[in-house]
């Protein structure tokens, strides 16, 4: 009984994704589920659209820059929180992880006001700064898991054998936390790429990210082009995310 119920729930959970992927190939002019026929023309349409392709470039650049910064900030914070005794550690930890819980609609407006006042609004840098805030906690979480998995005495052993702090970090700590840094970074990248609400507040002409284009498109029309784009994104995330996730899970010491 429980199994049947859970099967239904899982179908419910995956329903919209399945629908989107299925309608990407429909020959009808609007998304119909179940789809009719089979065609790639919506993929062609989306790849031919200059606006969509431009927005992919913007999103990719934004996600890459933000992830790079988030990886550095997140890894250093994770190390500080895991390996060092700090007064008020629980409070600092809660603060650094708080963006996960914080309502994006409020943060979006707050950053709009803030960035306008300090003259940063409308710039690419502004978007990067905002995204870094949103995605760094995920890097912190994943790296903390990786750090917890190996005996801290290993780092002490390295220092005892003559390695200073930098050498110990690059030759010992980093290789051992690499799965966590990677998994956290991939997750952060995907989140940044898909981010909509905060970006909506901070966007400007020339800075339209893919999610914004999709959102504005969906508001006024719905044709399977959106399905095609979404399917492409899902496929991309699966291809990137699965191996990294599998590696991260499998590392057991």
């Amino acid at each position, binding site marked *: 009984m429980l199994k049947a119920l859970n099967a239904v729930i899982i179908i419910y959970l995956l329903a919209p994704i399945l629908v989107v992927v299925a309608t990407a190939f429909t020959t009808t002019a609007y998304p119909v589920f179940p789809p009719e026929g089979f065609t790639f023309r919506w993929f062609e349409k989306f790849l031919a659209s200059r606006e969509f392709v431009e927005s992919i470039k913007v999103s990719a650049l934004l996600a890459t820059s933000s992830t790079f910064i988030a990886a550095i900030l997140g890894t250093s914070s994770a190390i500080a929180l895991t390996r060092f005794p700090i007064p008020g550690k629980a409070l600092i930890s809660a603060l650094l992880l708080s963006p996960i819980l914080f309502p994006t609609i409020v943060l979006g407006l707050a950053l709009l006001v803030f960035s306008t006042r300090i003259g940063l609004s409308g710039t690419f840098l502004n978007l990067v700064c905002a995204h870094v805030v949103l995605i760094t906690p995920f890097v912190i979480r994943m790296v903390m898991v990786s750090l917890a998995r190996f005996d801290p005495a290993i780092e002490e052993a390295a220092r005892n054998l003559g390695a200073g702090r930098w050498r110990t970090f690059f030759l010992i700590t980093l290789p051992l936390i690499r799965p966590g840094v990677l998994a956290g970074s991939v997750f952060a990248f995907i989140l940044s790429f898909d981010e909509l609400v905060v970006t909506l507040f901070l966007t400007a002409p020339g800075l339209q990210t893919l999610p914004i284009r999709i959102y504005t498109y969906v508001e006024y029309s719905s044709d399977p082009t959106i399905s095609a784009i979404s399917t492409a994104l*899902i496929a991309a995330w699966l291809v990137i995310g699965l191996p990294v996730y599998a590696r991260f899970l499998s590392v057991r010491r």
Partner: protein
Amino acid sequence: MGELKARSGAPEGAVPYLLLSPNVLWLAMFMAGAIVMLAGISLQVYEAGKGILDEWTIQNYVQFLSDPFYRDVLWRTLALGAWTTAGCLILGFPLALLLSRLRGMRRSVLYFVLLLPLLTSAVVRTFGWMILLGNNGFINKSLIGLGIVDEPIRMMYTMTGIVIALVEVLLPFMVLALDAALLNIDPHLYEAAQNLGARRARVFAKVTLPLALPGIVSGSVLVFTLAVSAFVTPSLIGGPRIKLMSTLIYQQSMGLLNWPFGGAIAFVMLFTIFALFVLTFRLTARPRGG
């Protein structure tokens, strides 16, 4: 081997602070600073044509909380939060029970199935629901085809439709929170209860549920917060006619340029969420047995 010189480089005690400061400073600026500035602006007034006036007033808050139109928006938003949380609890518990009982590969697979929706952006999932919930959508067509209803049930542009979609969007959060709590229950407790004569339903009611309470609470608080502040799903499925706090904030600040009023609504939202946190904390903090 090597001379024994006194310490060089940064003193050991400063290292953690050096590691933390970039992140902390970043958040201080782009989160704390921004929020404080928003709070400040919510105490000012916007006049069309004149911009933001340079006087302090709580007029925005008064307006939002006293005008029946806006109060409706507030209640509607809270109701959305409540319904979504309830839906996630009811659907999430069975799934969490299953997840907590699986081990190894099967658990990883189910875990991944749960995370997959989180990897697809809210827009994509909401779009999927738009296709499903329409009057000519799959759900209605199936219901009519099966003879369960004669006419399509209106779900798009209704609160019902929003709840159906939002529950799906937020379900993984609830399941993960419940799973974490369920994993903490010593499996021997179930066996002990059965050994003492309790049947399955009783075991569930008297052992599982009470011990899973921390997960129920944390999952509910999380889902409620996310539901109340959700923007994408309510705006796309509800349409311009259904007014919720999040869509109102967007409309006021981006459409009407009334940042002060938008800010006030935002802080009412924050305050509601904060009150929930405090309430939960007070209720769940167990007094030390004496």
